Every structure is written in structure tokens, then in C-alpha cells.
């Protein structure tokens, strides 16, 4: 009975989450890139690199790997710009490429090389107390599985719906939502316990 109620709550959450479909404002830039204009890569970088970098950083846990993922994505776009032709959601599509690139990079990484201790997030304000909180939150995030971290970033910070997170990470919507909720719950437990 309790299980059924929990399931109902989840289904309701998925349904009422709202189609937080991001208005893709990249149309003109993407058109130019798709037509092979090399000058359009700069504006495309400015528009997409922060999200790609952060998503890859949260997935891989390493700033060096995240930077490489950004480069991989843009090299791929530059060599095959036609990939972007006719894509309805370029932002989501590029993040899907970044997701694959991040996984490939982690797969190819030597297991004995530990990830760096880069901060995954920063305090929005500039005060020192919040900076300490950011370090503690980063430490807590590093205890989560990479897939949960990635789901949290994509949903919480990048603002994608669970459906979009699912499309980007190539999993069912329910799995994407589960990853997010389990990750947030564990994060609360870690941060609550360490206070």
C-alpha cells in the first residue's frame, strides 16, 4: 500500500514537473555553424561551453577531462557541421554528444589516476562562509555516483526537465528522475550529517 502511494507520488511528480522545455535560442547560430561558417563557432562556444563544461565536470569529476570533453564536442561539430542541420533542440543535442564524450573519456582513463579535487560548484555570493559550504557540498557530491551527479546538474542547474535529462543521458525518464531524487536525498543526508 505504502509502495503504491510512493509510486503515485513519483508519477505525479513526473507529470506535474511541467515540460520545462527550454526555449532553444540558438537557432541562427546553429544554422550558421551547420552551413560551415567557422566564425560561428565562437558564439556557439559562448552559448554552450559553460553547460558542456559543467555537465562534463559533474560527470567526470575532473576539470582536465571536462575541458577535453568541451574540445572533443567542438572538434566533432567543426569536422561534421551538418550534424546540426535540422536538429530541433541543438542545446540538448550537443549535451548528448558531451555526455557520450564524457563517458568515453572516463572509460579510456587509467583507473589508477585519481580525479582532481576541483570544486564542482561555487557560492553565488562572494563571502568566505559560503565558499566553505561550496567545498563541503563538492565533497558530498563526490560521494555520489557520477550518473546521479550528472542528473542533479542537468535538472537543478541547467534546468532540463526529467524527460530531457533522460534523452541526454539515454535512459528512461523514470531512471533519470530516480537518479536525481536519490542523489538529492543522499546529498541531504551527507550534508545534514556533517553539520
Amino acid at each position, binding site marked *: 500500500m505504502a509502495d503504491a502511494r510512493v509510486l503515485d507520488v513519483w508519477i505525479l511528480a513526473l507529470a506535474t514537473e511541467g515540460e520545462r522545455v527550454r526555449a532553444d535560442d540558438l537557432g541562427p547560430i546553429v544554422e550558421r555553424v551547420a552551413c*560551415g561558417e567557422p566564425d560561428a563557432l565562437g558564439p556557439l*562556444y559562448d552559448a554552450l561551453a559553460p553547460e558542456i563544461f*559543467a555537465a562534463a*565536470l559533474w560527470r567526470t569529476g575532473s576539470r582536465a577531462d571536462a575541458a577535453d570533453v568541451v574540445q572533443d564536442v567542438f572538434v566533432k561539430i567543426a569536422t561534421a557541421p551538418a550534424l546540426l542541420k535540422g536538429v530541433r533542440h541543438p542545446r540538448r543535442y550537443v549535451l548528448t554528444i558531451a555526455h557520450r564524450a564524457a563517458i568515453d573519456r572516463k572509460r579510456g582513463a587509467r583507473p589508477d589516476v585519481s580525479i582532481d579535487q576541483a570544486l564542482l560548484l561555487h*557560492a553565488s555570493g562572494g563571502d568566505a562562509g559560503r565558499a566553505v559550504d561550496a567545498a563541503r557540498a563538492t565533497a558530498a557530491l563526490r560521494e555520489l555516483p557520477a550518473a546521479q551527479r550528472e542528473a542533479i546538474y542537468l535538472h537543478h542547474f541547467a534546468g532540463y526537465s526529467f524527460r530531457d535529462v533522460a534523452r541526454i543521458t539515454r535512459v528512461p525518464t523514470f531512471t533519470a528522475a530516480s537518479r536525481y531524487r536519490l542523489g538529492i536525498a543522499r546529498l541531504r543526508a551527507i550534508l545534514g550529517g556533517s553539520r
Partner: protein
Amino acid sequence: MSGPLDGFRPASPPPELRNRVLAAAREAAEAPVPGLLELLLADRALRICFGAVGLLLIAQLLVDRAPHGAAPAIAPAAQDEAVIPSETGFTAAEQIDELEPAL
């Protein structure tokens, strides 16, 4: 509802990354596109497949060109005095009289 991540923002890419990425992208865009054959030859598994197919073709040619030897002799049909009457539409019992001299 306040979450554990409220008040934070995700890390930004380093500023120097922009030049590095754009330079790499432009370089990749200007590089000549490898042909289909080059792409295929770049893959080790495909190279092995090509080699195996080539060997099979050579083996097939060698087998086809090899002499097959003389055809085996076929024994001639045995000859006897019996004459089988042509089909008349009658049963064997009805033809017994015609067959009698041969038997």
C-alpha cells in the same frame, strides 16, 4: 522549498579554454577529410577482415585453376537380347503374351 544546492552555481570553464577549443576546432575543420578507404584502413579489425577476404579470393582462384583430371569412365549399359516392347498402355498381365518370347 530550499534544497541542499541552493545558493550555489556550477563551476565555469577556465577562460583560456575558449582559445584552445576554437583553435582545435578550426584546425580540425581545415584538415582534409579522410576518404572512405583511409577510414576503413584505419580500423584494425577491418584490415584483418580485408586480409581474410583477400586470402579467400586467392584460394578460390587457385582452386578454380587447378586441373581436375580425366573424367571417370562411365560403364556402357549392359547389352542383352531382351527387347522391351514400347509402352502400349496395357498392364503387364495383358502384355504377357508379347513378353513371352523374350523371357
